[in-house]
């Protein structure tokens, strides 16, 4: 039996996202894109560049700087039979739309006794690393992961950047898609036929027997680099990419921890009340008697993200801090 060779294309995370948007706009006439500067400007991070020209202003809609209303309008349009994709420039700005996301998108289905589902996708940029300081750099996706009624996904790979959007659009409920700002320029080979992926399971990005490193989004590459370094020192790390922050895929995490007996959670959010805290708590709840060391967390320092490069770096999880945490739990 012969297998057709898999051809790949060199692409970037940004292009993969754009290709996913393009596919969605092309394949489903209910889909439209709405947000600040998604049209003429081409998107704050150039993700939507060229889509206005291709699909026109009805389907690629520039909005006023009214996060609450254009997100709420997305909810209304979803109730009205459309499949809106709303882009919010950064997660910090999404706080202006939190009323609509929390009080409407997340609650309507339940509050209406199952009558009104909201098939809405909200994309936003998250994370630090680009010296954008304290109002453009935070990782608040963990807050959204707190809210029942929402699904929260965080593509960390080219495959997921390319494939998660379509699946999110098929979901009958609101899905928040978090793109880490430092990933847009990430390049690599993507299979030519790459397409839809699930938005249910975490993925083991690297197998290992000594330690489970739980990570997602922008922290995945940090974790993978740390794993390489640890491997050179004889510590074989299993790296899990959560992919889906809500609902969390406990099974994949626990299956790994039951094998390695040790876990470190890497999360760019602040430590207190973070997603890392949730993951850690679940490991303790479900794997207490499997643990050979306390669960460690590597999170951002509890400061508003500073501008100066050296301070920003000091505030963020770095390869060295992940390595140190890993050594601590393995020693």
């Amino acid at each position, binding site marked *: 039996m012969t297998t057709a060779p898999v051809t790949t294309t060199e692409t970037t995370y940004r292009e993969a996202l754009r290709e996913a948007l393009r596919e969605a706009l092309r394949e489903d006439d209910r889909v439209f894109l709405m947000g600040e500067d998604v049209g003429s400007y081409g998107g704050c991070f150039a993700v939507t560049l060229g889509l206005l020209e291709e699909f026109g202003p009805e389907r690629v809609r520039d909005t006023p700087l009214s996060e*609450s209303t254009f997100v709420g309008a997305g909810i209304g349009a979803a109730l009205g039979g459309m499949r*809106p994709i709303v882009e919010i420039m950064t997660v910090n700005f999404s706080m202006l739309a939190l009323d609509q996301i929390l009080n409407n998108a997340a609650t309507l289905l339940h509050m209406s006794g199952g009558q009104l589902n909201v098939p809405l996708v909200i994309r936003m940029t998250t994370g630090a690393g680009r010296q954008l300081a304290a109002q453009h750099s935070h990782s608040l996706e963990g807050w959204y992961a707190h809210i029942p009624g929402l699904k929260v996904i965080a593509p960390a790979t080219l495959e997921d950047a390319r494939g998660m959007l379509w699946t999110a659009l098929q979901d009958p409920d609101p899905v928040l898609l978090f793109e880490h700002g430092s990933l847009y320029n990430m390049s690599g080979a993507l299979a030519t036929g790459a397409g839809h992926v699930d938005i249910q399971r975490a993925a083991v990005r690297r197998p290992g027997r000594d330690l489970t490193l739980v990570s997602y989004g922008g922290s995945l590459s940090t974790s993978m680099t740390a794993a390489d370094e640890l491997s050179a020192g004889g510590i074989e790390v299993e790296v899990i990419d959560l992919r889906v922050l809500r609902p969390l895929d406990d099974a994949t995490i626990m299956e790994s921890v039951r094998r390695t007996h040790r876990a470190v959670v890497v999360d760019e959010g602040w430590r207190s009340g973070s997603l890392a805290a949730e993951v850690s708590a679940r490991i303790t709840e479900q794997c207490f008697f499997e643990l050979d060391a306390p669960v460690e967390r590597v999170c951002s320092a509890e400061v508003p993200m500073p501008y100066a490069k050296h301070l920003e770096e000091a505030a963020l999880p770095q390869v060295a801090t992940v390595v140190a945490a890993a050594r601590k739990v393995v020693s």
Partner: protein
Amino acid sequence: MSGRPLLATRKETTGTRNGRRLDLLREMTRIRVFEERCVELYSATKIRGFLHVAIGEEAVAAGVCGLLEDDDAVVSTYREHGHALARGVPMDSVMAEMYGKVTGCSRGRGGSMHLFDASRRFYGGNAIVGGGLPPAVGLALADRMRSRRRATVCFFGDGAFAEGEFHESLNLAALWHLPVLFACENNLYAMGTALAKSHAQTDLALRAASYGVASWTVDGMDVLAVEEATARALERIRNGGGPVFLELRTYRFRAHSMFDPDRYRDKAEVAAWRERDPLELLARRMREDGELTDADREVLVAEATAEVDAAVRFAEESPLEDVDELTRFVYSDPAEV
């Protein structure tokens, strides 16, 4: 969801001036009797949570909703019993919702502030002041993108005027020429804060007009005036004229909610507005025109009372949702999508 045919009564009698007025009086009477019963049931602890009744504001609900087509949409506030009833949401299911029963229009998950009926395109029931405006804009956007000749009515109070979402929504609807009727029930108080105490410019229609939205002020106690303004607004909206803003000047005769001691209003002010009770206003006019006798009114009240009695009975006898169903409807059931 089952129930009586949507607004069938009104449609049957549409066409004669007499029938139309009588229908409006009948609808307002239904709402009045229902709301008074709610107050009673709340006092008897049958209804809990927050309860906001619309006694005094019936003309807005009856006058606006009476003209809507089946596929128009309504987005409302937490003082929405009247809107729901006038929209045709069955009284049984509204009362059962107050009781927290599974037969309620939101299966007991919404309560007084969150009435929903998807089959009648009644989208709640929003208890965040101003929170309903953006989704209403979105519903209208979907209609516009699908080239559907529908209107979306968004009810909200004068309190919403102070919220950013109001301003954002008016701007966006005007910018995109969306078919939205912004129906502002100006009852002069945002809970206990008078309009004049929270707004430098109290002419709401003037302010709405500044967004490029056609805006009119209407006597919200005169159901015929409300209906006439609504008719004009809907015509404009359906003909692609963009959104319309109606400031419906009305008044609630009772306190904000059952928890409100109503210390902020002058008794004389309340008494003066009671003189302009929308039911009495219309009845008086009909009587003067020889269209209504006292006996007729008694019949209307008796009919409404019977309907409310039946609704209470239905609610009392309905079962509660099984607690095992607690976490249902947080995410869509794949089997039900």
